[in-house]
């Protein structure tokens, strides 16, 4: 246990070093600055995927509507800053709070549902949220979107360049990962994994199953709302199609492809899916029109051959290698 703890935090530190590399590479001309913007989107997707990983992979609840919270976060920030001149960062907090409150109100009745029913209910939430963004013209400006969302500031420095945004957003993403790790390595995290394993047994051990499901749903919504708010501040423009069902499904893809076993699956999934979105067309060269098909094929291959996801697949291989090298893993019955 201790070693695992040490390892998760160790990985986090290692990740910090890895993330320090791109700016250096850009500085020395070994890497194009364009990639920094892709890394920014990776940071945003990582924040949402980490929350969804807690919800789906560790607590065993599904959500096909998380784009709703991403959208709620983005629209909260956009409306507060553009229409009401709300101070920067206050709107980010407000976006997180509102996402959490709505998750609480929606989650209280729906999380009592299980399996497919929960999937459909959360999908309904996503659809309703999209309709509200699209149709509530007086507040959201409807399908034409909100322009002129200000960039974030730290003290008096406006986050104008991609490099500044990169540092800021990845710092926040690392904090989100840290929060998730801390939750998982605590009484709360054990309760979540317990109710995933067996709701009855968890309840028999005193875990308030409904309350914990609601808690993790709210946490994941808060992460998504945070990412949405930061997305709005980075793009400076938002409109409803960014927050539709398609994005919800992409989020679920991220955590499935990444792997359910650890929180790092979320990071791997976010990095992989974002890269594929950005680079697949380029990589295919003359066949770039077929990128959507290749994208689908890659998903299928991952699911068929590595159902545990990439992170899971790697740890399975690792385990096998390790078993080969003498340490007995399982006790014979």
């Amino acid at each position, binding site marked *: 246990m201790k*070693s*695992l703890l040490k*390892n*998760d935090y160790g*990985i986090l530190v290692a*990740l910090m070093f*890895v993330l320090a590399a*791109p700016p250096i*590479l850009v500085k020395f*001309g*070994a890497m*194009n600055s*364009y*990639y920094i*913007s*892709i890394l920014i*989107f990776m940071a945003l997707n990582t924040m949402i995927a980490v929350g969804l990983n807690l919800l789906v992979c560790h607590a065993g609840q599904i959500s096909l509507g998380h784009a709703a919270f991403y959208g709620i976060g983005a629209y909260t920030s956009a409306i507060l800053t553009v229409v009401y001149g709300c101070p920067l960062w206050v709107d980010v907090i407000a976006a997180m709070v509102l996402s959490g409150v709505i998750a609480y109100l929606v989650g209280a009745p729906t999380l009592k549902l299980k399996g497919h029913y929960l999937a459909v209910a959360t999908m309904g939430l996503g659809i309703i949220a999209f309709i509200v963004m699209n149709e509530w*013209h007086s507040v959201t400006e*409807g*399908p*034409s*979107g909100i*322009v002129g969302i200000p960039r974030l500031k730290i003290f008096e420095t406006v986050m*104008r360049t991609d490099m500044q945004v990169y540092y800021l957003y990845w710092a926040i993403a690392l904090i989100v990962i840290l929060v998730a790790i801390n939750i998982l390595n605590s009484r709360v995290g054990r309760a979540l994994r317990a109710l995933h394993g067996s709701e009855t047994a968890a309840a028999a051990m005193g875990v308030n199953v409904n309350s914990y499901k609601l808690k993790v749903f709210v946490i994941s919504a808060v992460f998504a709302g945070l990412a949405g708010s930061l*997305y709005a501040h980075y*793009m*400076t*423009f*938002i*409109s409803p*199609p*960014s927050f539709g069902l398609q994005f919800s499904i992409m989020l679920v893809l991220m955590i499935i492809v990444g*792997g359910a*076993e*650890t929180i*790092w*699956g979320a*990071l*791997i999934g976010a*990095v*992989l899916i974002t*890269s594929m*979105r*950005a*680079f697949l*067309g*380029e*990589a295919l060269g003359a066949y770039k*029109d077929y*990128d959507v098909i290749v994208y689908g094929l890659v998903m299928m291959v991952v699911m068929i051959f590595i159902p545990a996801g*990439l*992170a899971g697949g*790697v*740890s*399975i*291989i*690792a*385990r096998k*290698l*390790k078993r080969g090298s003498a340490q007995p893993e399982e006790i014979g019955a």
Partner: protein
Amino acid sequence: MKRNRFGVFCSTALSVAILALALSGCSGDKGAKKEESAEPYKIGAIFSVTGRGAPIGQPERETAELMRDQINAAGGINGRMIELIVEDDEGDETKAMMAAKKLIEKDGVIAIIGPSLSGPTLAISQYVAEAQVPMVACAASVKIVDPVNPWVFQVALTDRHSVNKILTYLTSQGINKIAFINDSNAYGVSGKAEMTALAPKKGVEVVAWEAFGGEDTDMTPQLTRVKASGAEAIVVWGTNPGPAVITRNMKQLKMTIPLVQSHGVANMKYIELSGDSSEGVVLPAGRLIVANQLPDSDPQKQILLDYTKAFTEKYNKPPDHYGGHGYDAIMLTAKAVEKAGADRSLIRETLEKTTGFIGTDGIFNITPEDHNGLSEDSFVMVRVENGQWKLLDQ
């Protein structure tokens, strides 16, 4: 859980590897800061080739590639070829942003044409301005050029032009009480906003406001209310298939007041969808769909006929006005590059001084205050007769 130790470690290694992989394509590209005379002019294009905007983005890309080939075949611009780098934004704003960053920072383009849709255009407008790269957008929202973004131009005819053209037509017919029915998508809502602002100025009263959803298959409730409102004509603002449903429903309800559609359905698909009911429907459209009916004195006629011929030859289908946007965007840009070379600010300044440029959408007179440069005269009124577009007398 000891069993996880190594696995977690490897997972991280993998994530690091993926990051590295993602960044591996990076070495070597330094953008196009140095210019050599033999190098081609790099022009970026962002079109919605797939996804929700595909019907718009595809003809735009086809046209842009067609015109690139024509220009290059004729020796290029100032002896240099055009290299057109097309990115597909899938109608998605995030993807459009990634595409814009790639074109500007990695490929080092001197100008961007597109995007096809308003959302992606607005999403990248601030960025292209900060990066100081001129962009000629093909999307129609008024928000793209109002307020003016110094680096962003627009070739599409806007809803404002269209509403003005319709209002002029209506008043010339002695009609001043109308009903307005809009699609609840971005296009319809924008048309409604323009109508709200412009109708009073032209002395037209909107006596009924109605709306429909893109999936609605029956509009009789809206039309029944319109019937009761005493409107003398109906103006519909939407994209297929909703406007065709209204057209058919009006026939079923035996409503005889004039029906005016918007330029959003100035395509054969609309006539196909509404069948006989569309006879006599009037709408504003660019000159492309009635090119051969234009008088020879019309300055656009030759260009439109040439473009139609070339496009039909290459792609075996007639062009539509979306392709026309692609034509105007690349030709305006090429024209500016001819004068300004590869200097982005100079291209911007040249674009801003464009006068009398004859395109498919109309004659462009761009000023620092007006980055669209078209006027309502770029529209002509057409009527459906025998399932074809018929140009109305000006």
